[in-house]
């Protein structure tokens, strides 16, 4: 075991290295590129025996990844944002092939407008593609989750691809102290990949991805993937427990921070949840009974865990780092559906959209959300959904608009 400073991207690469990946189909995209460059460096130094192939697009990258996985080798790949969406057709397809590969997504906001900064619209856009989803908040968790993801993907009752998500910039380029497990520990945790009967070999003809021509057969196979995903919850808990026994780090499906006696709970995914964690600690110091719930596993959604963790709470503030135009936040909808019908569900479920395109969420905003949810509890009604956006920000944007207009006039444009 070594303790060192690693970026989130470095941690993802270390996870893949310790997993002894065979194959790395790659395509560069900011902020993910450091992952494949790091692995490529190790391959060139012969510290890692792996074949790296740069494809011409993420769509092809995922096709090659899935095809190699169903040929029977251990496959790792990584992308971000536009790349994930460009590959979306193949995400659904390789999940249907039951290709047990691991994909790291370094979250970044989607175009347009085009940006490099993080939010979760990319990873939530592929929420229903059949990949299991693990969401990380620290660099350590990124490394550990990649190892856990391979066990989960290759679990005989699951056998589905797994996506490990980390936030661009906030984690991808942020150095944190990370414990790197010894290779022997990683090997004990993750044995070599056994493809079973799903593999291409001469003399063992296999047809994969074949057409079905009727709804019943289609329903059957699609639902099989759903059931396999649901089995992923129990498998995850067992695998995470084994990991904890070996490495001492516990990764429950939900991270609950000071939730037990909390009345008000923040719900968030990803690294921005560490901001909520700090705000919770400060509110606790001020005597407020408040906690943080961070789903680590989003697919399968740990519904029973969510209900249990939030049972009897007075109010919940869901902070969505994504925006579903015409609806609001994706997590709010997911959580509302999960809690619906639960007899002791919190009476107040407030939705906030914040952190879009890497926009900071301040402690004061967490305090304000807490205050607002408390008021709503007293009043007995849900507050309307809100965007975290200050008057000062609006003034700054107005200034930019003035500059843009002035530039246009300066170039001979006419005032309208």
């Amino acid at each position, binding site marked *: 075991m070594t303790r060192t400073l690693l970026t989130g991207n470095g941690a993802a690469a270390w996870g893949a290295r310790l997993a002894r990946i065979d194959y790395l189909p790659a395509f560069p995209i900011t902020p993910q590129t450091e992952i494949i460059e790091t692995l490529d460096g190790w391959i060139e130094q012969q510290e890692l025996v792996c074949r790296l*192939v740069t494809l011409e697009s993420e*769509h092809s990258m995922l*096709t090659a990844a899935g*095809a190699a996985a169903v040929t*029977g080798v251990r496959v790792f790949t990584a992308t971000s944002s536009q790349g994930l969406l460009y590959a979306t057709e*193949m995400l659904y397809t390789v999940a249907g092939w039951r290709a047990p590969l691991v994909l790291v997504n370094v979250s970044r906001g989607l175009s347009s407008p085009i940006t490099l900064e993080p939010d979760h619209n990319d990873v939530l856009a592929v929420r229903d593609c059949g990949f299991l989803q693990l969401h990380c908040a620290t660099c350590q968790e990124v490394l550990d989750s990649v190892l856990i993801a391979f066990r989960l993907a290759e679990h005989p009752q699951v056998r589905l691809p797994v996506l490990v998500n980390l936030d661009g910039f906030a984690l991808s380029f942020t150095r944190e102290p990370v414990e790197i497990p010894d290779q022997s520990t990683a090997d004990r945790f993750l044995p070599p990949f056994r493809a079973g009967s799903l593999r291409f070999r001469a003399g063992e003809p296999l*047809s994969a991805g074949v*057409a079905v021509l009727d709804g019943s057969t289609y329903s059957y196979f699609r639902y099989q993937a759903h059931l396999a995903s649901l089995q992923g919850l129990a498998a995850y808990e067992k695998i995470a427990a084994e990991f904890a026994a070996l490495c001492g780090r516990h990764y429950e499906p939900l991270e609950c921070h000071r939730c037990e006696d909390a009345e008000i709970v923040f719900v968030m995914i990803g690294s921005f949840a560490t901001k909520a964690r700090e705000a919770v600690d400060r509110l606790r110091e001020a005597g407020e009974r408040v906690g943080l719930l961070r789903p680590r596993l989003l697919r399968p959604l740990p519904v029973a865990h969510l209900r249990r963790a939030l049972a009897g709470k007075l109010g919940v503030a869901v902070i969505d780092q994504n925006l579903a135009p015409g609806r609001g936040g994706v997590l709010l909808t997911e959580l509302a559906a999960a809690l619906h019908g639960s007899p002791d569900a919190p009476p107040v479920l407030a939705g906030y959209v914040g952190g879009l395109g890497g926009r900071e969420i301040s402690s004061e905003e967490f305090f304000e959300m807490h205050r607002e949810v408390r008021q709503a509890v007293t009043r007995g009604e849900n507050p309307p959904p809100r965007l975290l956006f200050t008057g000062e920000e609006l003034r700054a944007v107005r200034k930019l608009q003035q500059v843009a207009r002035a530039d246009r006039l300066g170039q001979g444009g006419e005032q309208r």
Partner: protein
Amino acid sequence: MIPPGRQHLRELPDRHCLAAGTPLCAGCGGLAALQAVCDLLGEKTVIVNAAGCLTLLAAYPSTPFRGSWLYTAMASAPAGAQGVRDGLDILLDKGAIGTEENLEVLVLAGDGSSGGMGLSATSAAIDRGLDFLYLCYDNEGYGNTGQQASAATPRGARTATSRGPQGHPGAKKDLFAIWAAHRPRYVATVTAAEPLDLARKIETARNLSGPRLLLALAPCPTGWGYEPAEGVAIGRLAVQTGLWPLKEYVDGRVQHSKIPQPRLPVRDYFASQGRFAHLLRPENEQLLAALQDETDRYWQEVEEHA
């Protein structure tokens, strides 16, 4: 060098790899080319398929193939071939499988995929030097959806999206030249109506490694408008009129494997199919003459460079 081929039809394999009773249209020219490829490649093949008519060959729970099959998507079959090839090579390198378990990787795609959305993945697979064989069945339109015009539709042809008095206004994209410009190992045009030429090119391709294309003209009774029994005659006419030159690119050079002598008028080919019927009308006399000119010029250049 191009090896000599078989001289008689009786020398072709009499044991067929592909099972009968597929759901494809009667008289499918693409299936006929695929049959020859399967017979000569044998069972140790994995077909990586792109969306098209022949995707329906493997429909759960049946497959006509003795080898393996992976349906990918319309745009990325060559990338699927990359993944399978790399996976097999990794296993061979590790000693996890023996060479007897190895497979030839065959991409199977129509002209819609090959000349359109699959072109980027194809180009990249060639420049990576991927060891694979690519069979494009060219029925000159999006056949599986009812023959809309594709990049491979020839000028003048009527399709579901070019029903005007002069048919399709565009020119057929030259996939042979596009492949050859990448300097791959091998490119050949073929058609099932010329079985000896086809067999020789399949065997040539099989014995080479690297990126290899067999571009098969695939007469399509439903899309082109003719009776299924006429398919072979139409394939022959395409060659005899000089509209479908049989050629190959190998070692940096293009050679024609058959020079039609005498070369029949293109009108004979157009007269054989409903999709060209309007070309024979008096008001399209000029267009017909232009199409004949185009073909004449092609062969004149071939002669000049011979």
